[in-house]
């Protein structure tokens, strides 16, 4: 889990400590490239392929975590 948070922090361009569940994705570098990276990261850590469209609807980091755990 820690490795996933670190990767996501890098993708969003924030410090891992700041990446709390309530973190607003709009406050980070959340664009189409970040979505691609997130799909890979979730696949690697949770073995789940999340839908790009569902990721596009996410507002907080918690939403992403929910998608990852939902599929697992």
């Amino acid at each position, binding site marked *: 889990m820690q490795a996933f948070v670190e990767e996501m922090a890098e993708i969003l361009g924030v410090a891992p400590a700041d990446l709390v569940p309530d973190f607003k994705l709009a406050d980070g570098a959340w664009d*189409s490239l970040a979505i*691609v990276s997130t*799909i*890979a990261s979730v*696949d690697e850590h949770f073995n789940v392929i999340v*839908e*790009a469209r569902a990721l596009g609807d996410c507002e907080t980091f918690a939403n992403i975590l929910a998608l990852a755990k939902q599929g697992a």
Partner: protein
Amino acid sequence: MAIAGKEFGNVLRLPQGRIAGVVASVPKRVVGNDHFLQTYSADEVGNIEKMVGVKERRWVDLGQTTADLCAAAASRLLEQLQWAPESIDALIFVSQTPDYRLPATASVLQDRLGLGRHCAAFDVNLGCSGYVYGLWLAMQMLQGGGMSRVLLLVGDTISKVVDPADRASAMLFGDAGSATAVEAGGSGGTFVLGSDGAGAPNLIIEQGAFRQPAAGQREGGRNPACLRMDGGEIFNFTLKVVPGLVNALHAAAGVAGSVDYYLFHQANQFMLKHLAKKAKLKEDQVPINIDRYGNTSSATIPLLMSTELSEILTLEKKSVAMCGFGVGYSWAGALLEVGPLKVLERIEA
């Protein structure tokens, strides 16, 4: 024989046909990432470089087309193989950036290259899956015994259709052409081909052909006459199809573990590394050159062979898997023996 009901496509085995040589051609003009600093911030450029993995790419000049790149590659190839132009039985031009709406660019190239009048010539419109489809078509034409040499020309100049304001696309794509000589004999190959038009909207040029003529206006900050790509959707598709495609090839050929190289369409470095890891392939089995050439659409696989495997494949015979996937959606996998090739090189045109 076809094995019906396979999830990732019909498995097609062609008993004969082999690659005699490959020449890839790239434009002389090198475009480094500093080029984009005129338009984007250093942070943006750095971020995209990290994600898509492209450090430089080649772009054609205004008057240069895909056909020009392919013609240069073909001339060099025929010369190096010492194949007389009249000995070519068929020419297949695979591209989404042809010279004309009509006639077929293949007809024009038949004359430019001095091929005989008996030569069959046609264009196929396919992108990322186009090289593998083309290789299969070329080999298929050799099966009946009526033809013995096919020239497969594959390439694209996507730089002409990217929106400079769309930074992810603008920095991802490069231009390249290629020529592959396919001849009778050899051990043929195993192919898996499939399509899913449901994915069409995720990689598309909406305006400029017959569904919607170009209106010449930007819409929602985008130019609808330029390439539109939904990277996330494409990645989803890739993750679903490519591992299955590789497995289908392994299963069909019964050779998992004995494949020497996996040549993937160079879609995006990040995506490729992830795919390789997921499919548990060794790093040295999965060559990558997207850092120097970008995503050259249909030309990535022959270009990859010419820059990364030119030494080994001119000396030895190797078992090679090829996977093309993307725009359409369309995908194609091939497993075949390649080498020792008489010519495998990259030229500038």
